[in-house]
């Protein structure tokens, strides 16, 4: 059986140019975690249902478990590792902590990336809009309510209210 030839990928992750070698069938979540040692991005379901693997790809919110690593060539990726500014947490991260909106934390990186994408596009969403926007982020621990409150609260901080 022939072995797949590895693919060389040059991409930008959280503003830094970076390169890696991947298998043709490898997905982006796996390359981030195993080739680039960026384990902030989680993989839960591997089928697009849970959102734990959420990243931004050229400004679009996507499931990195459903992106081939080779597709990252020449693109811009933003992961949860790029959200905080050094040691200063982003308002979404800060509010998730304050509201105790995480328990095991597996869903949290995906929630942070998705909520940031929402608040940057719609700075003042209604509760319903937050719930719909985050419908693809499953959490087995919190029951969601604290997450929704935290995101709404982060919105007020980001709007400077």
């Amino acid at each position, binding site marked *: 059986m022939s072995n797949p030839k590895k693919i060389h990928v040059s991409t930008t992750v959280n503003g830094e140019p970076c390169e890696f070698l991947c298998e043709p069938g490898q*997905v982006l979540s796996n390359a981030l975690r195993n080739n680039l040692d960026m384990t902030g991005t989680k993989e839960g379901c591997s089928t697009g249902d849970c959102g734990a693997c959420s990243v931004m790809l050229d400004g679009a919110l996507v499931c990195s478990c459903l992106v*081939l690593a080779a597709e990252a060539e020449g693109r811009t990726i933003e992961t949860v590792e790029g959200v905080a500014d050094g040691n200063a947490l982003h308002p979404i991260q800060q509010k998730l902590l304050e509201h105790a909106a995480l328990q095991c934390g597996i869903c949290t990186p995906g929630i942070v990336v998705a909520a940031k994408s929402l608040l940057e596009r719609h700075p003042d969403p209604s509760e319903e809009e937050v719930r719909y926007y985050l419908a693809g982020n499953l959490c087995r621990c919190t029951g969601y309510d604290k997450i929704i409150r935290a995101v709404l609260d982060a919105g007020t901080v980001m709007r400077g209210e």
Partner: protein
Amino acid sequence: MPLLQYEAPTSLAQARQALAGRSDAKILAGGTDLLVQMRLGLRDPALVVDIKHVPELMEITLGEQGLRLGAAVPGAVVTDHPEIGQLYPGFVEALGLIGSSQIQGRCSAGGNLCNASPAADCVPALIANRATCNIMGPDGERTVAVEAFNTGPASNCLAADEILVSIDLPRPGPRSSDAYLRFIPRTEMDIAVAGAAVALSLDEAGVCIDARVAIGAVAPTALLVPAAADALIGGTLDEDSLNRASAAASEAAAPITDKRGTVEYRKKVVGVLVRRAAGVAKARIEATS
């Protein structure tokens, strides 16, 4: 067998070349069906051809004739577009219903159509809008109406070396609109038990002068239901026309019983959805004229 090769052609000619003679290849648009199927072991292509670098597949052209939508344009790009939703609100709501915000970042109308799920949400809305498919193959181009594109669950009319390039939606006439409704047991992230799309044109007096009705998830492919449209045309979307359109849709439906619903239930629900979608399309026309 693992995926052996990934190609990202940057022109239609290159894409055709990459696919030529390769019955073991699959085209990749947003991957929200294909990569799921590969990860679940349901498909194992040796070659994946990513068509998102081919300009014709990523373009949106809106003109006198209507909309030409590149087959691989992601849902979020369409739902964010300032004009498409005004012309085809039903189509845009159907595309926007697919998956979550994350899925919207990738899922395309072309992939939704080519994947040929009987429950694919944007297909009935395309049919109601008289959409046609521009297909490129080794012998040149051909055009197929959306209602004739899919041939059964997971099967479509494309040969292995053909590519769906774009989808054309003709520009609706004055006093026209459309709507799509689906029924799912929850409010988000689920697959349609039944779906219905209705496109209408009314005259000044509110009489329906043109209609197209299409239903989804109630037959092996989405169906155009001319009898339902005929029931609406000539009337004022009064109770009697709506009853007849609804009955015609229930009659045309040929669903299966599965965990989502029984035959009887789906036939009944699809009729209700047609009636309601017609009401929504009518209200949209009245709101803008």
